[in-house]
């Protein structure tokens, strides 16, 4: 599957806004989940499940270790495309 990185991030952002009910302008690569977006580990699991559906990828739980920013989560998903 080929997808432009910008296009992919836009999809990622839409998904995050929908699932997490956060302001779109807050979803930037450097935003941290805990402080900037105020989401907890359960929210992150739900986000990843939505991203798996959206991008048709599979993200095992072990891959989420250390994923604490939007950028890291995006790279994780984008790397599987």
């Amino acid at each position, binding site marked *: 599957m080929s997808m432009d990185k910008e296009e992919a991030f836009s999809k990622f952002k839409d998904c995050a806004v929908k699932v*997490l*009910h956060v302001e779109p302008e807050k979803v930037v690569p450097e935003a941290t989940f805990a402080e900037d977006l105020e989401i907890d580990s*359960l*929210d992150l*699991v*739900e986000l990843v*499940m939505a991203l798996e559906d959206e991008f048709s990828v599979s993200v095992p739980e072990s891959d989420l270790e250390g994923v604490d920013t939007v950028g890291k989560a995006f790279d994780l998903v984008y790397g599987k495309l």
Partner: protein
Amino acid sequence: MRLTWDSNHPDGGLRATRKVAVVGVGAVSVAGIGKEEFWEGLFKPSAAGVKRVENFDPTPWLSPKELRRYDRFNQFGVAAADLAMQDAGPLNLPSEKVGVFMGTGVGGLESLENQIILAQQRGYNRVTPFLVPLLMTNAGAASIAMRFQLRGPCETTSTACASSNHAIANAARLIATGRCDAMIAGGQEAAITPAATAGFTNMTAISSCGISRPFDKERDGFVQAEGAGVLVLEEYEHAISRGAHVYALIEGTASNEDAHHITAPLPGGKGAEACMRIALDDAGITPEQITHINAHGTSTPLNDLSESQAIYSLFGDSCPPVTSVKGTLGHALGSAGALEAIAVALTFEHELIPVTANTKHIESEMKLDLVVDEPRKFETGYVISNSFGFGGHNSCIVFGPAR
């Protein structure tokens, strides 16, 4: 309220000197949201059929983010607790001395059913990480504690339709015995789901015509309802010192068990009768001092018969006026007792007993003074409110006037 049941004690046991006041009420029910709407709703005709709280909008109380992890029963509870806390006014108490006791029959059943369907369609790895907090019965009490930052005892009681009476009774005792100075207590239920409806229907507990008519000879089952009722209870002297409005006092409570059948009451209403007797003893009063009975009165053939027998065994031919607000409200299961406790608090306030709606012809063998057709003036005295649950759980609360 008793502290001990020691029959060797000169007075038959020690009694609490601390009194328990009802200082705030919050209702979310088919009859209305908030105490004014709820009270007015008790005097309006009620449409036949399942009683959902159709106009409930949780957004004044919960953010979109919270809504994703709060099942409907939990949303009801938070809303009712918030209404009750506003009604009570600022408690000005240390958070460790205030607790939350809530009752619910099944908790987040709707979320569970939806997630099972989703899992079967798309696999169990698609089940939301919020499923457990959505469905667990204690999420209700926990959410209220989090909202108001209350760090006293926080527990959930699940005794089917007796749940909220038990929760209120246990909360009242924590105040009487001094562990807490105030409690948020009540019940919450949102179980009008396809599976629950099928279960109740197949056991023939539900009215086939969708009409709740407690104690009527044509009653044919209960009508499913949902909602939440929350009371704020407070130690009386503290309530008075801060100028709180006191609706009534909780004077006595009782809990016992039929140990007979998983759904049918003990023949002759013997378990319910014993429970009412214990509640009167706990309050230190005699049956003659009861001026009103807020009955469980579900409109099922078995409950209403056995409850009427229990009442007759205790009060004989001098039965005080009895009402069942389930004619109007339907049966909100684990929240029913709390909604009825609010009806009792407002009966003290307005000195008026609402009618048992829809009941036209009382079963001839039931020797009750049932309030039908027209509301009745409430003669100030003590009120007993009954709740009985599948499983044989009985719970009675005696309320008295504020003084």
